[in-house]
């Protein structure tokens, strides 16, 4: 039995995609927003997405950012739609849990910033896990 001819490691090609200027700027922005190291972010994107989605990320990100501004709190600060649909780095179910958690904290008297911070902590855990 021969090895399947076309299955090969795509990491180098995926990295080449992320090196373009638009992609680089986008990765930096997302990494700063969530608060994870850029290298970690790139690694996570490369593992999770196929090459076509990687190519299209900047366009989707720009589109998602516009929608983010119109969404209510705390979804806006967390970027709920942005990170589940436009740049799908977090599963929808987990994002729903995170939003619930943040709402719960606000109800229990925590300030919005504090609650969002802990929500982002969850997102960081998802990405670095």
């Amino acid at each position, binding site marked *: 039995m021969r090895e399947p001819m*076309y299955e090969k490691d*795509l990491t180098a*090609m995926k990295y*080449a*995609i992320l*090196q*373009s*200027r*638009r992609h680089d700027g986008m990765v930096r922005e997302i990494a700063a927003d969530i608060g994870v190291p850029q290298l970690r972010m790139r690694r996570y994107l490369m593992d999770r997405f*196929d*090459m*076509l*989605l990687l*190519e*299209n990320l*900047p*366009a*989707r990100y*720009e*589109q998602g950012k516009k929608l983010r501004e119109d969404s209510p709190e705390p979804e806006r600060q967390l970027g709920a739609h942005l990170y589940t*649909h*436009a740049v799908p780095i977090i599963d929808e179910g987990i994002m729903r849990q995170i939003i619930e958690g943040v709402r719960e904290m606000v109800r229990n008297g925590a300030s919005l910033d504090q609650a969002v911070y802990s929500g982002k902590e969850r997102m960081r855990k998802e990405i670095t896990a």
Partner: protein
Amino acid sequence: MTKKTVDVSIPVGPVHPCWKEPARVKCETRGELVLSAEVELGYMKKGIERIMRGRPWQEVMFLAERVCGICSVIHNMVFIEALEKISAIPVPERAALLRVVVNELDRIQSHILANFSYCYTIEHETLGMYLLDTRERVMDELERITGARVTCAYIVPGGVRFDLRPEDALHLRAGMDTLERDITRYMSMFEHGPLISLRSRGIGILTREAAREAYAVGPTARASGISDIDRRLRHPTYQKLGFAPVSREEGDNFARVMVRFQEVLQSIALIRKCLDTLPEGPIRGGGIPGAGEIAYSGEAPRGELSYFIKTDEAGRVVEISIQTPSIMNIEACCHYMLKGVASLADVTSTFVSSDPCIACTER
């Protein structure tokens, strides 16, 4: 007894009889139903943006054209117009209209080629060959004006390279008349063909919401009812010509091909209008590109094409980033249209209906 179905992952490509270019679509299927598709690229990545950095605009101009050989005129046009915007170089009226003429000719040949590919993929070879023959006549017109069939480098800062000679204008007018007659005929053949309908209607549906999410552009988006994304609406020359985009609501393979047919007819009307209003005058004003930074978009045959350019005083390109329409369209196609396609035979035709251009996608 129920039929037993198995989940299989079926790769299509990279070398496939129906595809012009290499890409590999891995389809997760249950029986023949496609559940999801994943795309593997990297067969065409030449690193054009990396080559362009630090080079004078005179070189980048030719590299920009070779991002995509099918729609080379619009790459030329967007890059040069971005340079003109940076350095405030005026364009003579006649040159601006000639640019539109050449750009629309390029759009016609690109759309006809896309529709040929679709007809060829659904095995309607007769219509495919009719279309390919018609395309050769459009290429002739393009060659008469610009001097080359593909990659003609017609547009330069401050104008265009060659003037439209009166005999060429006559030839072009006559050519547009035959083209309109032929395309109208092929369009009705496509619209009323019962077997074409079976292979095209209701297959590979892209909903308006999905099109918005993947940021689909061009005919792919216009077939799903989104018409406000046409960049020609924001181009001053097109605004003067009174341009209004076409759109359809169905969002299936049939609608995408029909939108392209309709746009060919629209382009013919635009070219006629340009020829009617073409003023006498110079075609080159001259001008030297200088330092600046701009994000500029134009409407390619496949949709919105954006260039981000940063230049220095000597006109060297310091930073450049190109976003081609195929990226968004193929993404919309593979992650939304292919989901739920009923058979593997429709995978290739749906893929081709989105007019994929892998060379643009990977640059």
